[in-house]
């Protein structure tokens, strides 16, 4: 009993962490070894490094910086590239990962420090595509139209998007050479256009994604739908929006002055 416990205590987890002090500094790799505990995730391992910031060689170093929030794969803040795959570090269980565990920031976004990235561009995109339902006014408009229950259930799946950035990291067309906003905000357009009140501003959202960096930049590699941790049917959303924007395009050119 004591022998196995000692064995367990000696078992170490190896990490290779790609670090960088700020946006413009050169990235470097630092190795860490931390004692194994049962049921660890990548975040609890990073917390261990923060508690005891010594690298594998035994030199004292700065604690590794990363982002986190809910710790239950709902907020999207703790996304990073783990063993080559972008995903949330809270649900990346150490027992299921091949060692050394390689942690890198999602380079699609500007790196703030170490594993921490700035996902502002995603929130800016949500503003660009008007991913909300305007109901503000000077008086009470009363209840909106009812939403069929079946559609609500389907729309709920699209609403699971947590703006984590994994689909942007996976997309070959989201990079420094292109201004493609990526799959996540596009799918939000489909979500808000499906809402009975949201549909009243349908054309505004479609026009927005027909602009620069919008839907036209999708190249159908379909990596996003593979990568999405929430299983959102991103490629189905994109294809459905293709149909909607084409109709909008013809309506704009040939159609009437009736906008919605």
């Amino acid at each position, binding site marked *: 009993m004591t022998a196995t416990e000692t064995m367990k205590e000696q078992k170490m987890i190896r990490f290779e962490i790609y670090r960088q002090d700020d946006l413009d500094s050169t990235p470097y790799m630092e190795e860490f070894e931390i004692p194994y505990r049962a049921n660890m995730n990548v975040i609890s391992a990073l917390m261990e490094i923060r508690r005891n910031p010594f690298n594998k060689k035994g030199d004292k170093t700065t604690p590794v910086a990363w982002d986190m929030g809910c710790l239950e794969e709902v907020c999207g803040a703790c996304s990073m590239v783990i063993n080559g795959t972008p995903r949330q570090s809270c649900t990346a269980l150490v027992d299921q990962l091949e060692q050394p565990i390689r942690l890198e920031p999602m380079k699609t976004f500007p790196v703030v420090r170490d594993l921490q990235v700035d996902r502002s561009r995603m929130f800016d995109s949500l503003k660009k595509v008007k991913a909300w339902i305007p109901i503000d006014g000077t008086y009470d408009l009363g209840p909106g139209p009812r939403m069929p229950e079946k559609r609500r259930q389907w729309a709920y799946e699209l609403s699971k998007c947590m703006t984590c950035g994994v689909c942007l990291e996976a997309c070959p067309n989201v990079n420094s050479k292109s201004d493609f906003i990526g799959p996540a905000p596009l799918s939000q357009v489909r979500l808000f256009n499906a809402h009975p009140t949201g549909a009243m501003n349908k054309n505004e959202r479609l026009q927005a994604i027909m602009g620069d960096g*919008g839907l036209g930049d999708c*190249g*159908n590699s379909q990596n996003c739908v*593979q990568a999405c941790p929430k299983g959102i049917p991103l490629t*189905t959303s994109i294809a459905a929006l293709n149909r909607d924007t084409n109709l909008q395009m013809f309506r704009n050119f040939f159609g009437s002055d009736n906008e919605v």
Partner: protein
Amino acid sequence: MANSREFYWRRLHSLLGVIPVGIFLIQHLIVNHYATRGVESFNNAAHVMEGLPFRLILEIFIIFVPLYFHAIYGVYIAFTSRNNPRQYGTFRNWMFIMQRVTGVFTLIFVTWHIWETRIAAAMGADVNFGMMESILSDPFMLAFYIAGVVSTTFHFANGLWSFLVTWGVTISPSSQRISTYVTIGIFLALTTIGIRAILAFV
């Protein structure tokens, strides 16, 4: 955001790849197939095509302008992607990469092919069975032509798949899967027609 024309250029790029360029490709491969019926047959077909009324206008507006718009804009699209097959080795991601690789290769092949045949014809050469026979007697050119035809038919068939997605025809995953099978069939059929025609000159 609102003033950009990129969306429309991308839609035009998608449309022109199929109509008229894709349609012309099918027609061209089928006319070439006359070669399998002998020298006489091919030369007759070639002369019919040569003798079409308004030939130069047809060539410019149905072939060269759409083809080179599609090709040059396509090169821009190809070089703005950052391929990642190591992280995502899925079928669709490979098709995405292959579409870009074959696009660039097809542009090189087609440009060479136009130089060697159509430009040569404008300079006074006679486009006939003998011309192709002498081009393809060089084993390097034979390999280049076979690779070029396979690359072109792949690019067309796979492009047809994404054309259906881009124009909002195939939305559901199952319809996209079925259109994958259909376009693989189109690829195999056109490749067979194209290669049989090439081998008829050897």
